[in-house]
């Protein structure tokens, strides 16, 4: 009797384990969502202008955190000394790199062009390059591993399907798609916990990411007055109003306060 009871318990446990093993969430490659508006009107190239500007940090920039990669021999060899964290990258004159600038008004009446070239993120030197990637929802995302060590790339979206995929050294590039528009998708590597990145999937083409000089350009913008939003990893969002003249360039310089990140 006792033996029979023990047998039942073991069978039940085996079934439970099998159930979990088989119950894995389907890894779906999301198709571009219905929120895309391929049938919208194209921007009139004859009147389109652009928005340019520089994103800056006012005040004394915070001392960058130091990333020690001593925990793994390969990464430590790539970076024998601690690497500055990339949450705030300040250039000469307080310019801010890796800030995302986009028109936050409803632009759904305009047709969306999904670029045929993929957005690219590389894992190199045990860091993500670039630190911030912006793309159009539905655009291909190419993930490469240039390191001679294993990484896993693990985004944490709220509106899209979460995934966690490993990429051993020498792997072929991996292709993924964010089907739904979503801002500031945090990306991490659980193998190397200092590796962090952010991805943006926009529902239109009116966005840009600042370069090392803090400058950005959003091109092919219909004339009009718009609200632009600037996102920065540590300092959050800031908005500004800008009027784009026909065939002209509008300037929108936005500054964050260093004190606001405390």
């Amino acid at each position: 009797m006792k033996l029979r009871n023990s047998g039942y318990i073991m069978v039940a446990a085996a079934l439970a384990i099998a159930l979990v093993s088989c119950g894995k969430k389907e890894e779906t490659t999301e198709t571009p969502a219905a929120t895309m508006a391929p049938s919208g009107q194209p921007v009139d190239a004859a009147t389109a202008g652009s928005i340019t500007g520089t994103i800056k940090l006012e005040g004394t920039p915070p001392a960058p955190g130091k990333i020690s990669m001593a925990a793994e021999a390969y990464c430590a060899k790539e970076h024998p000394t601690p690497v500055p964290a990339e949450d705030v990258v300040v250039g000469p004159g307080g310019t801010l790199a890796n800030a995302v600038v986009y028109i936050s008004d409803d632009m759904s009446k305009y047709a969306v062009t999904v670029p045929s070239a993929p957005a690219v993120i590389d894992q190199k030197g045990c860091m993500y390059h670039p630190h911030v990637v912006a793309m159009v929802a539905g655009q291909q995302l190419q993930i490469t591993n240039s390191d001679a060590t294993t990484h896993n790339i693990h985004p944490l979206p709220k509106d899209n399907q979460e995934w966690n995929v490993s990429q051993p050294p020498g792997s072929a590039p991996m292709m993924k798609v964010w089907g739904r528009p979503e801002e500031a998708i945090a990306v991490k590597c659980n193998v190397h916990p200092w590796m962090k990145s952010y991805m943006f999937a926009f529902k239109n083409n009116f966005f840009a990411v600042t370069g090392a000089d803090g400058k950005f350009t959003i091109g092919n913008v219909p004339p009009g007055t718009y609200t632009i939003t600037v996102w920065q990893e540590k300092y959050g969002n800031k908005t500004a109003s800008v009027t784009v003249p026909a065939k002209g360039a509008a300037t929108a310089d936005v500054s964050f306060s260093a004190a606001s990140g405390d």
Partner: protein
Amino acid sequence: MLAGNYNKSLNRFCIGMSILTGGLLTAGALVTSNDAGLSIPDWPLAYNSLVPPFVGGIRYEFTHRVIAGIVATLTVVLAAWLYRVESRGWVRTFGYIAMCTVIAQAVLGGMTVIFRQPVPVSVAHACVAQIFFCSLISLSLFTSQWWQEDVTAISDTGSPKLRALAVWTAAATFFQLVLGAAFRHGGSGIGPHLVGAAVVTGMVFWTAGSLRNRFPSSAPFKVCRIVLHSLIGMQLILGGAAWWSRIITKNAPQPMPIMVYLTVAHVVFGALTLAGTVVVALVSYRLLTASLSRAVASSRAQEAM
């Protein structure tokens, strides 16, 4: 005279299992603090093989899985051993429960990986670990020579009864660990855990104080109260230190080693504190009579035999 059938090897095996499980808890805490829980994206295999590349966070996660596998296997051995040699049915049943618990724990561990750490599953995984640890500590006590010897029953005339107080203290400590796990896995803020800390500290001091005031000459209870005071004192210091480490490393790239080590120590001492309160509850049930009249009745029954 021994009431059961004391088996020295079995008791040592239980103690060894308890220590190993303490190591498993430490390994699990290291996985969480190093954010390495999903460094191996598949389960039960690792990178579709038995042995993954041993780099970065994979080292923590794979070591945790290996120790877990050893503990699970040895728990099945323990249950079989109890089935063969243990004459007390309730102790055998306890062994089966421990076996089921470790299997449930393995399933929860797999679910955290496969479903990418849903908060309820991660919290359940953390809490079932504590239950399993306590079940092995309890088995170590049940299979000990001391537990199976005849003891002189002590009457508890105080109020509330120490048995009840000890059980409530253990229950409050477990609930506090649930709150701690919820905070650690992003399911809640620190507030409930801080309130829980105050409640548990009060209850532990109440229990330890009752032990000292009511049974000043009882050697086992003296050990119990020293253990309780030491564990709660250490745990409060580690809790404060873990919180301090989070504040001072707030703007640093995480995880910083100081935060990892202090938080892991806090988790491990939390498990030891729970085990301590469970042991005190069990010892109070072993030594104390339910009531004076029942003690007299028991004494008369023994005399009649």
